[in-house]
Structure formats: C-alpha cells, structure tokens
C-alpha cells in the first residue's frame, strides 16, 4: 500500500521501483571505557559541572544521606520508584522513619506534582556527559523524575556504559527512554541561566559502591 507523499518522493528522486537499499555509511567507533574508578569520577564530575550534586556512597550511608537531604531541601512529601534495588536499600523505609509523607509512584499527576522529592534508579549511565538513562514501566514511572522539584537518582557502577552505542544496543527496543543530563535549565530571559523552569530544579546523583 502506498500514499501520495511517498509517490511524490519517488517521482522526485527518480526511483524506478524497488532498487535495493544501498548500505548506510559506516559510523565512527564508540568511545573506549577507562578504569571503573576514573569512569565514576568522570561521571560525577560532569554532573557537578551541570549544577547537579553528586557523590559516592556506601549502602550503609544511605539513611544518613537521606536525612541530610531532607533537611537541606526541606522535603515533606516524597515518591520512590517501586524497584527491588531501592527496596533492598530500604529507601522508602528510611523516609518514613524521617516522618516523610510517601506518595505512590503510580499516583495521579496532580498528587505527584505535590511531591518535593522523587527518587529513581537509572538503567544506564554515560560518564562522558554525566547522563542518566531511564526506562519506563509501571515499576519505573516517568513522572517521578519529572514532577517533584528535587530528583535523586541512586545508581550503581554496573550501569556505566562507555558510550551511547552500548546503551542503544541494549535498550533500543524499549518503548520509552529518557536521557537526563543535569537539572532542568533555560537561558531564555536575557541569557541568564535559570534552573528548574519546568522539570526538577535540583538533581542529586548518588553512586552506591558495595
């Protein structure tokens, strides 16, 4: 089945029926990874350059770090991805202990928008650009990294990939992916950089080393 637009294109290009497609030009090779330690440092360093806050942390340090974050950002309501790893770290439990009101990550957008803090993992990390790559599912809803004013991603070194090539090879069949590179920003008024214009104003990234 064909349509007028495709027919017009064929006529303009002078296509005579079904010429086999020539090969797509070859792509430049991907970046090579360095040692895990320097990849972590590069990743965290890039996030800092983008006005994000990043640190290395151990599983036992999570509770204290959450306590400090809640105080610093005056968090009252929070929402957390319902993922096995965040459960194992006891993130939601720690927040409850701190007296936070927890909102379900599958709550409707109006409730989600009332949250001060959204906590996610990341499926992949790109050290060269300081990028978090997030998939989407009922367990990992998109709103958690978007609607609250503070976004915290708790990630692991295993998620580091050298380049986009590796991420795409693994994830291109996902129905939704988002690259997050720093907090929401604009320079639309007199070129003044302003954070948090629509998305989160503050981005925290903790990389957990066992």
């Amino acid at each position, binding site marked *: 089945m064909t349509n007028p637009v495709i027919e*017009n294109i064929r006529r*303009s290009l002078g296509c005579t029926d079904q010429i086999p497609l020539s090969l797509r030009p070859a792509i430049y090779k991907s970046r090579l990874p360095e040692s895990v330690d320097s990849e972590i440092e590069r990743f965290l360093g890039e996030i800092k350059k983008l006005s994000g806050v990043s640190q290395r942390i151990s599983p036992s340090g999570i509770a204290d770090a959450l306590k400090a974050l809640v105080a610093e950002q005056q968090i009252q309501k929070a929402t957390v991805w319902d993922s096995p790893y965040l459960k194992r770290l006891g993130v939601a439990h720690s927040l409850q202990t701190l007296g936070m009101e927890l909102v379900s990550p599958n709550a409707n957008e109006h409730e989600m928008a009332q949250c001060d803090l959204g906590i996610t993992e990341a499926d992949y990390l790109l050290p060269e650009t300081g990028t978090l790559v997030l998939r989407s599912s009922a367990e990992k809803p998109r709103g958690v990294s978007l609607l609250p004013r503070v976004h915290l991603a708790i990630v692991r070194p295993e998620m580091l990939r050298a380049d986009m090539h590796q991420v795409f090879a693994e994830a291109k069949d996902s129905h939704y992916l*988002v690259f997050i590179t720093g907090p929401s920003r604009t320079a639309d008024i007199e070129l003044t950089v302003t954070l948090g214009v629509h998305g989160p104003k503050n981005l925290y990234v903790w990389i957990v080393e066992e």
Partner: protein
Amino acid sequence: MSHDAHPYIGFEEYSERVPQSIPLAVQQATDRFVGGRAARVAELPQWEELRQIGSDIRLHTIENMDVYLTRLEEKVKLAGGHVHWAETAEDARRIVLQIAKAHNVKTAVKSKSMATEEIGLNHALGAAGIEALETDLGEYIIQLAGTGPSHIIVPAVHLKKEEIAALFSERLDINAPADPIELARIAREILREKFLGAEMGISGGNFLVAETGTLVMVTNEGNGRMCTTLPDLHVAVVGIDKVIPDWESLTVFLKLLARSATGQKLSTYTQFITGPRRAEGEFGPKEFHLVLLDNGRSKVLKDPVGREVFKCIRCGACANVCPVYKNVGGFAYGWFISGPIGAILSPQMLGTQTARELPYASTLCGACADVCPVKIPIPAILRHLRRRVAQGDEFAGPTLPAPIRVTASIAAFALAQNRLYRFGTRLLPLLMSIFKRGDWIPNAPYPLNRWTKARPLPPFTAQFRGWWNVRSSKRKDSTR
C-alpha cells in the same frame, strides 16, 4: 487541495525596519553560542570525522527517503501508534484538528516545534476554540507578546527583562518583578497548572528513527517531557526530512546537535518515544499520533543541489556565525526559519517568487559552511538559487531582463571556447576605446551601464597571454 500562498518576503524592506535593540541582543546570544560550540568542538578530536559521517548518512537518507519513511510508518504502527500523512499544511492542520475534536480537547500544551510554526497550527486551533499554549519559556513569552522568534534557540532574546516583566504584569494580571529567575518561576507555576489540565500534548521532533519507529525529542527545560508525559493524547507533527535510518546513526547526530547548538555536550532531556504507554501507572499518553508533514518537501527533492538543505539538524550554528543574520536578527527572514539555512530553505519551499530576495541575503563569506555539523554547502546552494532566481525556474520567470541574460549567455559561451575567448581579448579593447574618456570608461552602453551607474570601469590595458609568452621566452633565454 490549495497551496497556502505565503506573502512576499521583502528581506531588504524588513531589515531596514529592524529596531536597533535586536542586533545587539542577537549578537549577545550568538557570541555565547559560538564560544560554547568552539569549546565543545575542541574537546572532540574526531569532530571533523563525525561531521563527515553525519553528512554522508543524511545524504544517504535523502536519497532513500521513501524506503526509510515506509519502514518508519510500519514500525510506529507496530508499536501501537497512529501515522498520518499530510501532503500540505492545510492537510496537517485538518488532521490535528480532527484528532483534537475526537477527544474533546479544550486545552493543548505545546513543546517548541518548527513544523507547527510552519503550518500555523496555533492559529488554526485558536480559531476552532482550542487553547494552544506554547510552554518553552521563550516561546511562551513571544506568544504573550504576539511576535515571532528572533533566534532559533532563544526566541525572546530581543526582549529585556523589564519588557518581559511588563508583559507578564499586563497579560497575566500580576505584579511581576524584572528578575529572570522570578519570571521563570512565575511561568513555571502558571504552565504547571496548564500541563496538569491539558487534554492534548503537541510536539515536533528532532529525529525519527526508521529502525524502530521512534520519535526523538531534545529539550532543556523539561516542557517537552511534560507535553509528552502528562496528557492522555500526544500528537507529534514532524517534517518527513527528519527520518534517519537507525539508532547507530542517532549516536552521530546526538553528538553533533547540542554541541553545535548551545555548546552543551547533550541537551538536558533527550526522549526516545516508541508508541504510546504500555502500562497504566507509568505515565505517558494512551494514544500517540505521528503526523508526517510533506508541505512541498517532496518536490524540493527534485533538485539534486538544493535538496542538501534537508541534511539540516536545526542547530542554528550557521545563523550564529552569519554576519548578515547578526545584523538583522530572525524577523527579517519572514518565515519560521531564519539565518543562512532559512535563506536556502524558504525559496525552495515557498518558491523563488515569494522568497527571491533571500538567496541574496548573504555575503557568501562561507562561515556557515565551516560550522555546519552536517556539512551543508550553504554558499554553493545560495549561488545555485541565485541562478534559479535570475534565470527563472518552475516557480517564477527570470528576474533579470532579457538583454542581460543574453549578454551573460554569450559571455559564458565565449569564455568556454578558446578561440572565441582569444578573439574577444583582442576585440574588447577596441570596443572599449570608443567609450573611453581619459583613463576610465565613465558611461558604458546598456546593459553594461549597471556597473558604470555606480562606479567607472577601468579599460583593459594589458593582455595576460601576451605578457606570459614574452616572460616565458625571456626566462628560457636566461636559463640557457
């Protein structure tokens, strides 16, 4: 189907009316972006190689656009999305309006999109009683102001914070301070309510990946994510030239785009959307529609020189370095796209009658081609379009009077023939001596008087060929 007749673009007239504040503001923006781009490019030793690959892939895609678009359609449908083909701007508006009406849409939130500017969608939605709200901060400001964009990336850069504060105070009935951070906060609050209430999200797209039927959107503020995450309905209007073969190709363009545009390594948010949401609680639209916009593009493909304009990934780097653009800003180009890329796109899409001044809106200095991340030969296309304007093409008759065209054709023919050329070099000085007054020719006969109206013509005095022969024989003598 009627073709939208675009009013004549009087670049010269527009550029004379540009207020002095615009070039100043535009130059602040362009200087920032030029500096940022240079820093990012310096970090990547393989930059030139990436540009070449980017150019090769785009050219390959243009030459096989029918194949990749067919694959794209198949994959989007497979992912549960709807695909609509719009031959004209009118078709595209009708399709979007039908979708909106079928879903009882009252408010639509829009992420910045050049395709919807191109088809004048906001006006059509407004006329149908649907509120269409721009949500990119700069676009929101100029929508309130009711003007067009002055720069592709920072559309409201020509407005001072005091002017924006006055605009907010008047249009939103609030007391807005002249502080960029406060103004952004006010916009965030107002637009947040709109995002949460809107029934439809409208976006454009940076790339369409044929391999999986994926829409790729690049934004910095997060409004693009809001528009495609919160409403239950997402409609993307994208030009057919945005298709690329596969995800491997995408790595190249994502590395080129933000570095060339804003001097970032990557923009803040890059989304890869393949069809609607799969699960109830994950957010995202229940329905996804892709409107593939032709609006004259398929006809432009006929011209093998001009069609390289579709390699463009809309970074704006060419405008940032253009001495003409920096002095007139975006308005003077008269359509949704400005700068050198606008000067080669508009005449091809709107016709060389409507946009015949634009190929001349350039000094041909070549800075645009030096920075273009996909190596579009902009000066060569400008010259090609000047020829089309002068000699006439399918859109318009020749703009040059017949005697000049005849003279130019004779000159072109004679210069290409060795004997005729030699004869001419002997004949011309004789002809010139008739008009010589002292050392100059002050008044040449028609049609050559176009030159002498502005300045006198120096007569030919030496013959290179004769001089060369004499010189060569002397050198032979001396080396003997």
